[in-house]
């Protein structure tokens, strides 16, 4: 195993592998022991980093909310309110219904995804190497067996979880606003429609197929866009990190470019969430 890790592809593979945890007959098992565990495997690094960052987000914003004053705000409150107002304005511009959920949902997605993307700017070897060191000295593990993927948004599980959450809300809003019959009508009576009842019935399967694809494509595009962008970015960081001293200027350039990407991807995820929920809540089709 150690020999494999020394090659370039092994190094990259090591960086792109999550720390796994699963329960086997012998109790909790980790990493390579979980190779065959199937669905019931937990990516502990993704979970730990994402939940940790989510808690940091909530802690920062909650402390701002507690201290918030309607008088002259401090600099910290101004900063937080800038983000809140930015998200609020975007929600107001796009979502015309009344909902107390959309805005906090958008805020959570924006800041949380941004924080998780931000982990991409930490030099790729720092935290994995530190984790390897800790694993080796504290737990007596082979440092090559310690996996640590610190950017949760490069894990399809996380982006898919966000997209599924949004998808559930989309269906929920559709049914809440239009009723079950309205929702089903939306899926079956468009885009092809006819005044002839018989033709209409014949068209239902085609409509259902098209509309279902259109509906399901939304969470897929959400999940894969974020995952793909960040995964590719992370991969390039790893590749740059593998080329020796020349990496410094390249790393700098890619990191500067990536500052744009991480904010943009967080913003895009938030905006698309609002747009999809807005489409789900509007009657016109």
């Amino acid at each position: 195993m150690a020999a494999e890790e020394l090659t370039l592809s092994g190094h990259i593979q090591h960086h792109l592998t999550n720390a796994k945890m699963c329960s086997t007959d012998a109790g909790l098992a980790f990493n390579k022991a979980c190779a065959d565990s199937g669905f019931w495997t937990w990516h502990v690094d993704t979970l730990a980093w994402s939940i940790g960052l989510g808690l940091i987000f909530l802690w920062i914003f909650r402390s701002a909310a507690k201290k918030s004053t309607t008088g002259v705000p401090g600099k910290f409150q101004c900063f937080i309110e800038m983000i809140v107002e930015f998200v609020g304005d975007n929600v107001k511009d796009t979502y015309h219904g009344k909902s107390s959920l959309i805005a906090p949902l958008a805020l959570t997605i924006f800041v949380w995804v941004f924080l998780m993307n931000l982990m991409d700017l930490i030099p790729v070897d720092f935290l994995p190497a530190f984790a390897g060191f800790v694993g080796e000295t504290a737990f007596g593990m082979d440092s090559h067996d310690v996996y640590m993927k610190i950017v949760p948004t490069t894990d399809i599980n996380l982006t898919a979880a966000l997209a599924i959450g949004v998808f559930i809300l989309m269906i929920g809003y559709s049914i809440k606003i239009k009723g079950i019959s309205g929702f089903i009508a939306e899926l079956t009576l468009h885009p092809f429609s006819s005044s002839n009842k018989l033709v209409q019935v014949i068209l239902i399967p085609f409509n259902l197929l098209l509309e279902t694809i259109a509906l399901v494509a939304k969470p897929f595009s959400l999940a894969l866009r974020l995952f793909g962008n960040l995964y590719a970015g992370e991969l390039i960081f790893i590749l740059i990190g593998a080329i020796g001293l020349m990496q410094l200027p390249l790393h700098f350039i890619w990191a500067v470019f990536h500052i744009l990407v991480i904010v943009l991807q967080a913003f895009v995820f938030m905006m698309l969430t609002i747009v999809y929920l807005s489409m789900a809540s509007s009657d016109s089709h």
Partner: protein
Amino acid sequence: MNLNATLIGELIAFTVFVWFCMKYVWPPLNGAIEERQNKIADGLAATERAEKDLELAQAKAAEQLKEAKAQAADIIEQAKKRATQIVDEETQKGHDEREKIIAQGAAEVEAERNRVKEDLRHQVSVLAVAGAEKIIGKEIDASAHSDILDKLVAEL
């Protein structure tokens, strides 16, 4: 693509985060922002009102000042008129007084002259009588010739 239980964990975490944000983060922050916006809007409205009030007050003050100036000018005009009037009156009075004093003086002089004339006449009659006595050499009874004397006196 290895979807696994992490998905469920993240879904739960996502739900909890959104719920917490909706319950404890968004409402106070957004509420504070909106309340401050209202406050600022009120403040701006109040400023506008105050500005209007100030303008009105300034206009009023200018008008009052103008009125006061006009009044002052009126008063001064009147005072001047009154002053000339008083001077005229006093001059007239002085003139009258002078005339009166002059007339009185003239009357007194006239009276004195008449009195002296009378006296002189009387003395002339006495002298005439005395002369006549000297000429005639005897005493003349003045009362007997009083009619002659009176005639004489009247002729003088």
